[in-house]
């Protein structure tokens, strides 16, 4: 092909234009504060994350309606990292360096969080992460508003071992094959050992993301349950795969009174696609359920329903709220409060002001941000599935529990401080 002087200058011009396009700094309007929203709006995680983007927009609108923060309106900047982990890092960098956002609310899977973490630490920005996770992380630049294992997994297993939970003596640890279930199961295994459960009474199984044929796994569970004492299943199966799992569970006649299944990633939203009648009695552990009755939650649910209708969301006919939505809601409010207290959006000042922030959560308790370890104190609720897909709270902690991001059940965590390391 001919390459001419013309194409030489064309190439130069193209490259230069490209570069300038990408480094364009949009003029910052003096009276808004930009906040970034980093959730997948397409790809495999869109199912779970789209609703968090909408929750964030709703909360920002609520705050703006009350006058904004520091007298300025909040301006959301929404990007779509499309369930693609490298794209998460790229979009995070874009939000911070290009759009100059003061804070980012985002991520769901631990992969996405781990891939953006270096960006936030390098550029000293802030991320609020609203999803329950496996712990084993404590970054100065992240505030974790979702549950750590001791605020979800361990109380759930304790409940299963209790009289009310069925006095389970054997456990199936079933999860999707990635870091969250692997680490959680490692913690749980150690915890079970500490309660006298032996390795032969623990079965650990993993399926890949998107797995949909659970016939063999359920046959294995049945066989395992037939080999001894009362068995319970602890499921860390992720999102999508839960529907075929529960369908197969129901069809094969595994009743909750025989082998109860407690899940950590199944909430109201995930049950939307499932006929819940055969699943009555199976459990989930969260820090929030839509069925909790109190005025704050009623207001929260109403606000969401109204927003869904006015924004014409796909879920407007049957609006559901769930734990990560509540955590997003709390996180944004707490950040706004911290900015007001620090009188600035500067990262380090806001981090200092976040310590000890409180907020009246829809879950019914006052959530507190721990002064040191960047995690929320959260109450734990155990709920049983009802025929209509909602949860019936059968047990709860008397009050919020402090998070232990470095689990005492992992020996390598010995000596870890309960606050971010000075790097």
């Amino acid at each position, binding site marked *: 092909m001919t390459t001419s002087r013309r194409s030489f200058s064309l190439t130069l011009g193209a490259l230069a234009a490209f570069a300038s396009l990408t480094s364009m700094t949009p003029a910052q309007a003096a009276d808004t504060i930009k906040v970034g929203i980093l959730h997948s709006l397409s790809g495999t995680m869109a199912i779970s994350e789209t609703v968090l983007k909408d929750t964030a927009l709703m909360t920002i609108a609520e705050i703006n309606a009350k006058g904004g923060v520091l007298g300025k309106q909040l301006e959301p900047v929404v990007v779509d990292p499309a369930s693609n982990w490298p794209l998460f890092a790229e*979009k995070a960098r874009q939000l911070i360096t290009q759009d100059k956002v003061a804070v980012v609310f985002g991520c769901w899977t631990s992969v996405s969080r781990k891939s953006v973490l*270096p960006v936030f630490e390098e550029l000293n920005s802030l991320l609020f992460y609203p999803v329950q996770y496996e712990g084993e992380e404590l970054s100065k630049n992240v505030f974790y508003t979702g549950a750590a294992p001791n605020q979800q997994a361990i109380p759930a297993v304790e409940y299963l071992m209790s009289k009310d939970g069925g006095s389970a003596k054997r456990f199936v640890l079933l999860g999707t094959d990635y870091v969250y279930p692997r680490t959680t199961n490692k913690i749980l295994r150690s915890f079970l050992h500490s309660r006298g459960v032996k390795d032969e009474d623990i079965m650990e199984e993993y399926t890949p993301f998107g797995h949909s044929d659970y016939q063999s796994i359920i046959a294995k569970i049945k066989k395992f349950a037939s080999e001894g004492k009362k068995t319970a299943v602890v499921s860390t199966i992720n999102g999508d795969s839960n529907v075929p799992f529960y369908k197969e569970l129901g069809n094969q006649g595994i009743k909750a009174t025989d082998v109860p299944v407690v899940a950590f990633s199944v909430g109201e939203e995930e049950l939307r696609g499932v006929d819940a009648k055969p699943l009555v009695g199976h459990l989930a552990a969260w820090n929030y359920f839509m069925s909790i009755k109190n005025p704050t939650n009623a207001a929260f649910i109403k606000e969401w329903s109204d927003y869904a209708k006015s924004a014409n969301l796909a879920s407007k006919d049957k609006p559901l709220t769930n734990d990560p939505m509540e955590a997003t809601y709390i996180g944004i409010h707490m950040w706004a409060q911290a900015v007001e207290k620090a009188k600035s959006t500067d990262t380090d000042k806001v981090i200092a002001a976040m310590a000890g922030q409180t907020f009246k959560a829809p879950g019914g308790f006052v959530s507190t941000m721990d002064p040191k370890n960047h995690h929320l104190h959260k109450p734990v609720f155990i709920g049983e599935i009802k025929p209509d897909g909602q949860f019936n709270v059968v047990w709860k902690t008397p009050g919020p529990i402090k998070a232990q991001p470095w689990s005492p059940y992992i020996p390598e965590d010995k000596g870890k401080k309960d606050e971010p390391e000075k790097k």
Partner: protein
Amino acid sequence: MTPAAPVQLLPESRRGLLLGVRGWSAVIGVLAVIAVLIPLLNLAVPAGNPLHLGDYGVALVAKIMCYAICALAMDLIWGYTGILSLGHGLYFALGGYAMGMYLMRQIGHDGNYRSDLPDFMVFLDWKAMPWTWAGSASFVFQMILVVAVPAVVSGVFGWFAFRSRIKGVYFSIITQALTFAGMLLFFRNETGFGGNNGFTDFKRILGISIAAPSTRMVLFVLTGLTLVAFYLLARAIVNSKYGRVLQAIRDAESRVMFTGYDPLKYKLSIWVLSAVMCGIAGALYVPQVGIINPSEMSPAASIEMAIWAAVGGRGTLVGPIVGAFFVNGAKSWFTQAFPEFWLYFLGALFIAVTLFLPRGIMGIKDRLKKEKGVEVKA
């Protein structure tokens, strides 16, 4: 109506010189931009200045240059030899993983668990490094693997596949199955390559901090130089007798056999070369993007490589590079400005290019030239 690009004939002026005067001046221009202008604009010009080229831009261009190398590789096998691979992402990822292993070892004791083992091995409860990681601390050894692993995998597969003369659509589907199997394998945590998380949180390369602007710029320049070098190599191949046989295989393989050439040697060698190119691209990609994980092996990623070549113009070498920039630039812009419309655009691009633009962007350029009355020089 032959859908392939016209056979390239060498005009007198170019024989022996690879590119004409204009060609070489273009190459030097590009080199100047990559090695001089952009480092200047990024490092020397201060941040507030409108001429400053931000880190974001540098990283994006670097990433796209890695993709451009893959597009070039695709052009060699598809545009010139007629083999459509829907699984070259596998080799890209393998090269990336080899580099990633080295970078993970470079984290040393700075991981979360302060251990010799990478973090993901600690949370899997492994006590020692598996055999697949032997030698991963050595830069030289891993660089050899960057080339060797894609070469071996592609060589074995290619030898069996071309020997049994699987062709056309069947072949493409098989390559897709292979990369899909690779993806499943690497998603398994037990395989020992970080599972779904992959490798991330890199700290150093060759002892130097990986996040430092100077390191970034060095990697950027290296990537650009590699791209140019591969382009020149590809041009040399295509203009040689070997390249002519490749094009003959694309156009009429049976006839090539009847005239006494053994297509197996040619196809296998270009196949392995393209795989190695993708592997090297992957190895350059990983330290700049900061993460490698099995989704790079997904069939969708590999199919996108094919579209870069198609959009730019198959059988032109420059075309796929342009195509890679065009498509990925559009992707970056769309996912920022109109996230919901990116996939419509990409899908429409696939359809439009195959229906209306079989010669891609370079084809448009040719048509414009023709209309101007300029003779289309080969």
